[in-house]
């Protein structure tokens, strides 16, 4: 006697249910346990929610929850080959780029890398103090022999953040120009932003081989691209309507308007998006070490796995230092843009 028998009896579906009965359907643990107590009246406060499993007890035709889980898995496995056939070649360049970047960052000797990083910081911020700060941080990491790991992490972040900007800005522009596009894109962005990072990894692991860099590359890009898209869209939509009207009144073409007015005026917002994108890449690169992303994340993982407290904490400190460096540099670049266009 199952709780929901009355439902199917009442609806006159008993025959339909029994016709589907196979008798020796695999039993779940809960079922077996419940068997022992069968016949006893369940007290009213234990009246079960009409879940798939509860309904299945009353009518074998209703699937069990684990069948649904199985179906999802089967479905994914069924389309996996097709997906892989399409996605694999498409994303192959990502592997190459990541491999190349890692190679360059690892191969370059520290006395070449330091001046290059200093030059980049100077170009972005024009601030001598920041150069000093960045050099001190990297030098400290090198001093405690974490330089190689830090460079691997940096290489991955550079590549992924660059690609995020490359794809994110055009998507953001497209969103800002069409309300329909915006309505369609926002749910996807919301999903990407709320899914826990680990969840991205699950389907990706099935699609690509774990040894390939593009696996973590895609995970990082999907996770980090959201802010730059959102802020590009927002930035362009926030451009002063009067200025747009002026641009129209001078007979600007859409193209002239986009590159001469909208993007320059949205630049502070776009840069804020880039800053967030970089920070999120950094967060994800640590998690991505679960799927063979090299860098400081590997050490953190070792710290957790082998309970090597010191290793975990020191590499964590390294990540914090990198985060501060990246944040300061991008923020300073943003401030420089802002200062030139106070309204």
């Amino acid at each position, binding site marked *: 006697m199952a709780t929901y028998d009355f439902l199917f009896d009442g609806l006159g579906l008993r025959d339909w249910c029994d016709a589907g009965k196979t008798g020796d359907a695999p039993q779940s643990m809960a079922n077996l346990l419940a068997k022992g107590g069968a016949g006893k009246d369940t007290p009213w406060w234990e009246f079960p929610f009409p879940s798939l499993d509860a309904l299945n007890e009353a009518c074998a035709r209703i699937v069990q929850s684990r069948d649904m889980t199985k179906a999802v898995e089967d479905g994914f496995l069924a389309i996996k080959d097709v997906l892989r056939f399409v996605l694999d070649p498409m994303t192959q360049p990502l592997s190459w780029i990541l491999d190349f970047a890692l190679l360059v960052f690892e191969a370059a000797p520290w006395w070449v890398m330091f001046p290059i990083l200093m030059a980049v910081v100077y170009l972005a911020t024009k601030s001598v103090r920041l150069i000093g700060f960045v050099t001190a941080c990297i030098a400290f990491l090198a001093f405690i022999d974490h330089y190689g790991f830090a460079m691997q992490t940096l290489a991955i972040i550079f590549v992924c953040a660059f690609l995020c900007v490359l794809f994110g800005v055009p998507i953001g522009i497209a969103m800002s120009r069409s309300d329909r596009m915006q309505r369609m894109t926002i749910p996807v962005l919301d999903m990407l932003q709320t899914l826990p990072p680990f969840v991205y990894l699950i389907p990706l692991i099935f699609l690509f081989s774990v040894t390939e860099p593009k696996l973590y590359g895609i995970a990082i890009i999907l996770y980090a691209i959201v802010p730059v898209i959102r802020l590009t869209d927002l930035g362009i939509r926030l451009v002063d309507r009067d*200025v747009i009207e002026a641009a129209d009144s001078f007979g600007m073409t859409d193209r002239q308007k986009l590159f001469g007015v909208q993007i320059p005026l949205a630049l502070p917002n776009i840069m804020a998006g880039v800053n967030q994108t970089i920070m999120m890449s950094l967060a994800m690169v640590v998690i991505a070490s679960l799927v063979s992303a090299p860098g400081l994340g590997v050490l953190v993982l070792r710290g957790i796995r082998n309970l090597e407290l010191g290793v975990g904490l020191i590499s964590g400190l390294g990540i914090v230092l990198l985060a501060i460096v990246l944040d300061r540099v991008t923020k300073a670049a943003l401030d420089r843009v802002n200062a030139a266009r106070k309204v």
Partner: protein
Amino acid sequence: MTGTVKIAIRSLYKIFGHDPQAALKHVQGGVSKTDLLEQYGHVLGLQDINVEMRESDITVIMGLSGSGKSTLIRHLNRLIEPTSGQVEVDGEDVLAYGEQRLRTLRRESMSMVFQKFALLPHRTVAENAGTTLQVRGVRQRDYLKDAWKWLERVGLGGYENHYPHQLSGGMQQRVGIARALTSNSPIMLMDEAFSALDPLIRTDMQDLLLELQKELHKTIVFITHDLDEALKLADRLVILKDGYIVQQDEPQHILLNPNDPYIEDFVSDINRARVLRVRSIMTPLNGGDLPDDAQGEVDINDTLEDTIARSGGDTSHSYVVTREGTPVGVLEMTNLVKALVPRVASEAGARKY
């Protein structure tokens, strides 16, 4: 005042809402602006506008906030599409223009000056002033040269490499004017161009505009809600109310013969002696003899204020009116005094004293 018609607007209607064409039928059937909004949910922007703007004139469009001034001026370069009616520039139907032709019109025939300046904050003053040429594909070196010239002309020499945020509001609007002038277009559209400036700067800018106009003879459409400004600048004054034209004429004529209580109320508050000119109230000679008892000569374009100062307040005087030295009329001080009294006294004024 003798120039050819540069811009003609004929029976123009503009209705905002989801089905303007249906609403247009109601409006033409006599539904008022308030009723249209309450019963049909449409906003009547403009109704039955007929204006001709002459070459080299400053046509001022005046009206209270929400009367449809901005809507009207934006029809001239089709930043807003009309619901029905015609807009002609140089005899050509602008509404028939395709995208390409319209762009050429905006680039070469018209330039606009905005209330909020609408400068590009990331470009220098000179680059801003050159925008109108840059849009046409002129090379940077060439457009900067023109931009420098016009910046100099509006009194901003030396600021070419500053950024807009480094300038005061008045200076920013000078850049806006320089930008419009750089385009070298015959028509200038100015939507409340001076309304955001404080009164002293505003007077400066009005003087600048008049001075430039003396030399350049552009066809200017100027929008304002300020009567003093309108009277100072206008060759022709168009007064809008709730989207329709209440009166359009030479400003002096409107001042002396307001045809609507709305305008009477408007004009009752201003200093008539400073605005009215001798030509509006003199008696023309028409070949008649000069009076022997005239106290002297006044110029036809003198203000009444000047004349009162000369007469020392004596209302028995009369003057010979001259244009460029030749007598053309007679001015009786008694007529002058009459002209100073508006037909309707200002309510605000009455309350004050």
